[in-house]
């Protein structure tokens, strides 16, 4: 009897241990590329808030692996012949993470809130967007004129994304304030009581989420949560993160730094791959309203001088980690073109500087020294400007100061600036309308405030086209004009690199890192 009891106890212990192991195996531990600053993906263009959003919320439409927009929460949709009215029907059985059904009212409230902060949303509103619920699952969008980018707006993957949240939250929270209730419509539930800001975020599988039946593809398709729990652990030190990955303390390390890639590739049980194929659009942003770069010839001189390969060589050793693209559109964009883009030529750049009547006003470069990429690019830019005969001054600061200083429209001798370096997601540089850098609507444009009526007119025309060939032709014309106005200088695409345990399967490579579809071998 005693023996039986002992055996039983041992079996129970073994089962407990086995269960413990199984439970442990159901937790996916991620080191995200940064920390989420505010838990509200409608609030701004912060990519970490966007990534958080994809965990907790779902969208009406989504971009698949081929960058095509596909229905996601929407079951069916139709467009009137005049292109002014869209009718959408939600999938049956959609529920929020608190178990309440997703209704047309929720969708409309969410989209109205999102549209205040998003450029495509603002354009949608400018077209007289009027939303109306027909019943709990059906709603319409009516525009005052036809606009070709409705689905692109509703399925956009760049932040802020039109995520759907309950109307009781969307209606009650102004668009410039973060939501406090994190009830979502996505495949995971945010565990607020476990949140340690700056250190850890935890998510559980959303028991009420109803995935689509199709295979997962990009940000679209069946978002099947194959693990019970996901933990985001903020590990500020890159070496520590890689060591933790090697030891299996974490499963995925987003955005591995370039110098650690060789170490990661050598590590046992670790695989290394591109986070996505679009990458980030590294660029030199110019202040077009203050000397010296209010002079278009000087801007063109810099465009002519920059050789993207030289810049990328300052931060990466493996050419597969980035590529220069002589285009204002992301390299992977269907509209990417070399039309009019000058071949790098220092002598020609010097001649343009001489021709410009440059008066010797120094160019002030904002150097966010804590960011290795930015610091390296600023150093190269500084040397290049000197080489072509432009005086420079590098102001060292942190990124927080850059974000503040770049808002200044003052001359450089009164605290203004001439250049800052940035690497926004290439997703926002795919086509002319949503293109942040090409926007040339003066005061409303991104920092640097380029002002060009021709580009703005063509961007508006682009939104009215649906034919790809026509769109390509117009995108090329826009680039030809941008080569003259030079709102910014493209450097090239740099890929974010992900390292992960090689026993993971189903990792997707959309423009935002997502954690559905992932399981262990």
């Amino acid at each position, binding site marked *: 009897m005693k023996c039986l009891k002992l055996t039983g106890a041992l079996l129970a212990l073994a089962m407990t241990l086995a269960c413990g192991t199984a439970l442990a195996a159901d937790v996916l531990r991620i080191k995200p590329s940064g920390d989420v600053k505010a838990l509200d993906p409608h609030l*701004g263009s912060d990519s970490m808030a966007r990534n958080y959003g994809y965990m907790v919320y779902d969208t009406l439409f989504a971009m698949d692996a081929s960058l095509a927009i596909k229905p996601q929460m929407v079951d069916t949709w139709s467009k009137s012949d005049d292109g002014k009215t869209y009718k959408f029907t939600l999938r049956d059985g959609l529920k929020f993470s608190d178990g309440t059904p997703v209704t047309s009212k929720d969708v409309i409230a969410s989209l109205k809130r999102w549209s205040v902060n998003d450029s495509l949303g603002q354009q949608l509103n400018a077209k007289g967007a009027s939303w109306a619920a027909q019943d709990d699952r059906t709603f319409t969008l009516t525009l005052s004129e036809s606009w070709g980018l409705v689905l692109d707006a509703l399925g956009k993957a760049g932040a802020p994304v039109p995520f759907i949240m309950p109307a009781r939250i969307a209606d009650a929270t102004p668009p410039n304030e973060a939501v406090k209730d994190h009830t979502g419509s996505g495949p995971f539930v945010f565990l607020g009581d476990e949140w340690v800001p700056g250190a850890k975020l935890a998510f559980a599988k959303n028991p009420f989420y109803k995935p689509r039946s199709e295979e997962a593809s990009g940000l679209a398709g069946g978002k099947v949560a194959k693990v019970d729990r996901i933990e985001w652990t903020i590990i500020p030190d890159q070496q520590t*993160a890689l060591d933790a990955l090697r030891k299996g*303390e974490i499963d995925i390390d987003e955005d591995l730094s370039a110098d650690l890639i060789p170490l990661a590739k050598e590590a046992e049980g670790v695989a290394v791959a591109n986070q996505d194929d679009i990458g980030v659009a590294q660029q030199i942003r110019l202040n077009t309203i203050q000397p010296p770069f209010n002079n278009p010839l000087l801007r063109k001189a810099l465009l002519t001088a920059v050789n993207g390969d030289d810049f990328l060589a300052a931060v990466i050793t493996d050419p597969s980690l980035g590529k220069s693209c002589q285009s204002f559109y992301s390299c992977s964009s269907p509209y990417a073109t070399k039309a009019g883009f000058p071949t790098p030529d220092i002598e020609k750049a010097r001649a343009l500087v001489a021709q410009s009547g440059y008066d010797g006003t120094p160019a002030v470069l904002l150097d966010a020294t804590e960011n290795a990429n930015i610091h390296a690019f600023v150093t190269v830019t500084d040397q290049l400007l000197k080489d072509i005969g432009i005086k420079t001054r590098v102001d060292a600061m942190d990124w927080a100061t850059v974000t503040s200083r770049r808002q200044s429209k003052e001359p450089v001798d009164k605290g203004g600036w001439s250049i800052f370096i940035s690497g926004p997601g290439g997703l926002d540089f795919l086509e002319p309308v949503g293109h942040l850098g090409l926007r040339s609507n003066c005061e409303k444009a991104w920092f640097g405030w380029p002002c060009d009526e021709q580009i703005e007119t063509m961007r508006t025309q682009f939104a009215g086209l649906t034919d790809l060939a026509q769109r390509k032709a117009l995108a090329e014309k826009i680039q030809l004009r941008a080569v003259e106005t030079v709102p910014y200088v493209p450097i090239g695409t740099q890929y974010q690199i992900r390292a992960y345990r090689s026993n993971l399967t189903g990792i997707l490579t959309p423009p935002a890192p997502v954690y559905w579809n992932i399981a262990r071998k």
Partner: protein
Amino acid sequence: MFSFAIKRVLSTIPVMLFVAFFVFSLLYLAPGDPAALIAGDQASPAEIARIRDSLGLDEPMLWRFLEWIGHVLRGNLGVSIFSQLPVSTLIAQRLEPTLSLMGLTLIISVTIAVPLGVLAAAWQGTWVDRLVMAIAVFGFSVPVFVIGYLLSYVFAIRLDLLPVQGYSPLADGVLSFLRNLILPAMALSCVYIALIARITRTSMIDVLSQDYIRTARAKGLGAAPVLFLHALKNASVPVVTVIGLGIAMLIGGAVVTETVFAIPGVGRLVVDAILRRDYPVIQGVVLLFSMGYVLINLGIDLLYTLLDPRVRY
């Protein structure tokens, strides 16, 4: 002594507020915009302005500071600009890891450094002394993060004995708590051991040349009782001082250690807050640190009276 302690604590309140105001002013005068950071890299000026307005960041600095003091006096440290959580909650979440790290570091350091200092003094000029001083020089010279990486490489990566990173709360078990904390505490101890060992040695050498030590030895007292019962107690006033003041160094070192070992402590909280210009969090942590220093100094002063009966208040 009780009234002294009360007076001492009360007299430091203005000091703490001054420190908080000073730090707040510096940060306020330094450029940096939390609204721009919330809005993201690609935000338009209009979006940033909307967020600034909702956060009340355009209000005058003095008004914001007075508002903050008003809240503090009512026991409210304010709300983080970013997480929208109360600052007291954020600090409470981060306090245990930092206090645990500092506590364990203190235990390791004192346990190792004091005997080393005593031995070096007792065998002054011999190889023992030179060895202890060499260890001290090493501890001072090598940055904490280098020692951290070294320990992590040896004990976590090569020998696979301990985790690379993370913190396990004491409530989850003593073993996992110690497993996670031992490497960071060892890394942080190095500089502290060096400091305490040197001071202990110097103080002990001074005491060992005193007449009463010579008398004790002449009376036939053994070496150990002379060193540890007679000399060490009288040599300990400067040692206690340096232990207390060294806690300031510990806080600085804890920031680095918490980063290398990914420990979610107060050090990382304040660094992140500074980088984001999360003013309420910075003020709250500065106030906490100031209070910590005041209490440590008070504790040291009180300890003097126990160690040296000649000290009176």
